[in-house]
């Protein structure tokens, strides 16, 4: 069984991004939904499936469906952190292929910046968190800092190599009018930023913004009738390994390794075949670990791989061309924005930041503290 070419992405859109003080999580998702359906050439009445996840509400799938006036015949609220929306993409493709729905709407929205909801706390010290919370590790940054520290100790990776990820992201963001941070950023700026949880400093960490997004996934027969070229799902894989960082089997082995190998197997491809990569950059170290896990370089070599502008505009690998969570936006969960940018790149809609080769794109989203990963390979032609 395969999802290959069983579904296509027909529409994508962001809501307002950055600082959106008057908005609610629902207004942002409605905005994005309307724009993504317009992008697809579809209307609300075509939607028969809703997928969402968020840090708001008690039953957010119910709340957002009600607000939009949609009574879906299929719905999924899988929540595995910021990777959730790429899980939704795979699950939507599976549901479409099984005949359970035809037009799926994936949604996200957050007002965490304007409402100052961001916290470094894990919350109540119960269940697994009772064994970590009392020690004062800021979350999630501390978990990624532990991975970065070990990567440096085992592989000799340097803070400057981590900083290359942030600098390249900012160079891409400078080419993206929707990006929140576009001012030039140097390696020295990243190195001199105040420490948060060493070895990670402020500019190794993703932004804190508001924003929302939407993605429309459709059945093949619908995809072929729409005005824009469909973006086909060629390979998909997911994996999760733990919740709390002390339970991660190997802190340098991202679940992206298992998810990616499943996606590549389904697609009949490997990392060297990929034209455009959108890799969740919650922190600079996340990109290094994911590049290694997906086979873009050997384990331990990602520090050297990202150096010398290889992932910056004009470099060998068009990576995080929106500016990523580090410079474009990061409203708490970023996975949906990876899909949005990948689709725009594949359609050739990206203007000055357009990757020269854009026949296929890889999206790899990591959630919580290196806990979950979904990787999807998309392409323009089926």
């Amino acid at each position, binding site marked *: 069984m395969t999802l290959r070419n069983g579904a296509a992405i027909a529409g994508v859109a962001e809501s307002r991004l950055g600082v959106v003080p008057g908005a609610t999580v629902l207004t942002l998702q409605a905005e994005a939904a309307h724009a993504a359906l317009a992008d697809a050439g579809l209307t609300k009445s075509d939607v028969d499936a809703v997928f969402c996840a968020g840090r708001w509400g008690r039953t957010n799938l119910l709340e957002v469906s009600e607000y939009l006036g949609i009574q879906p015949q299929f719905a999924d609220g899988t929540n595995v952190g910021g990777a959730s929306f790429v899980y939704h993409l795979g699950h939507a493709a599976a549901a479409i292929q099984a005949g359970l729905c035809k037009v799926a709407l994936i949604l996200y929205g957050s007002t965490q910046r304007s409402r100052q909801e961001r916290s470094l706390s894990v919350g109540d*010290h119960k269940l697994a968190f*009772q064994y970590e919370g009392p020690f*004062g590790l800021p979350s999630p940054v501390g978990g990624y800092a532990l991975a970065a520290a070990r990567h440096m100790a085992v592989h000799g990776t340097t803070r400057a190599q981590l900083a290359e990820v942030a600098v390249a992201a900012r160079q891409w963001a400078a080419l993206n009018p929707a990006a929140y941070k576009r001012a030039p950023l140097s390696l020295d700026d990243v190195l001199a930023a105040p420490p948060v*949880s*060493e070895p990670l400093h402020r500019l190794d960490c993703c932004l804190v913004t508001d924003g929302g997004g939407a993605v429309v996934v459709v059945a093949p027969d619908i995809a072929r009738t729409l005005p824009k070229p469909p973006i086909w799902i060629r390979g998909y894989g997911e994996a999760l390994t733990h919740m709390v*960082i*002390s339970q991660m089997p190997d802190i340098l082995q991202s679940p992206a390794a298992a998810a990616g190998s499943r996606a590549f197997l389904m697609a009949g491809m490997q990392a060297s075949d990929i034209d455009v990569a959108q890799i969740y950059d919650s922190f600079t170290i996340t990109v290094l670990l994911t590049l290694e896990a997906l086979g873009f370089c050997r384990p331990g070599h990602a520090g050297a791989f990202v150096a010398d502008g290889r992932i910056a505009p004009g470099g060998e690998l068009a990576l995080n061309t929106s500016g990523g969570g580090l410079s474009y936006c990061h409203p708490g969960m970023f996975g949906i924005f990876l899909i949005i940018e990948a689709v725009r790149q594949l359609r050739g809609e990206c203007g000055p930041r357009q990757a020269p080769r854009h026949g296929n794109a890889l999206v790899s989203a990591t959630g919580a503290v290196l806990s979950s990963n979904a990787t999807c390979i998309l392409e323009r032609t089926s």
Partner: protein
Amino acid sequence: MSEHHPEPDEDSRPWWDALARHLLTYQTCTDCNGVVFYPRNRCCHCLSDALQWHQSLGLGTVYSRTLVHRAPDPRMRDQLPYPVALIDLDEGFRMMSRLVGPDANQTPIGARVQVVFGLGPDGRPLPFFEPVDPVAAPDKRGDANGGGHETT
């Protein structure tokens, strides 16, 4: 409001009770011999309920560490910066902890450490780790079923 307190449950109450007596404990499965930590009522390797409690010798190695500059808990702000670490105990389990002692902020990954008991933010005993004196205890390996050893 980030002042949370550990909430012992039926899995963890024996662990917290042992800590109150300055004992660090863990479980093993008598069916599959797997080491289980954090405490559970079923083995996370084979789902057997045949779990036994053991006392750890409290000796281990720093798997990773981070020096924290932003405290999630306001009660910890006056301790900043402080080192949080993952410790691989010799009995085969990994746990989060704090590194303590005069050189705590410089204790590297790979360092041999031993448990010492201190107080958490709510006054509850917690297991912390400090470097093992390399002369007094040259890389002493723990016994996998090391019950009965005093660790304090």
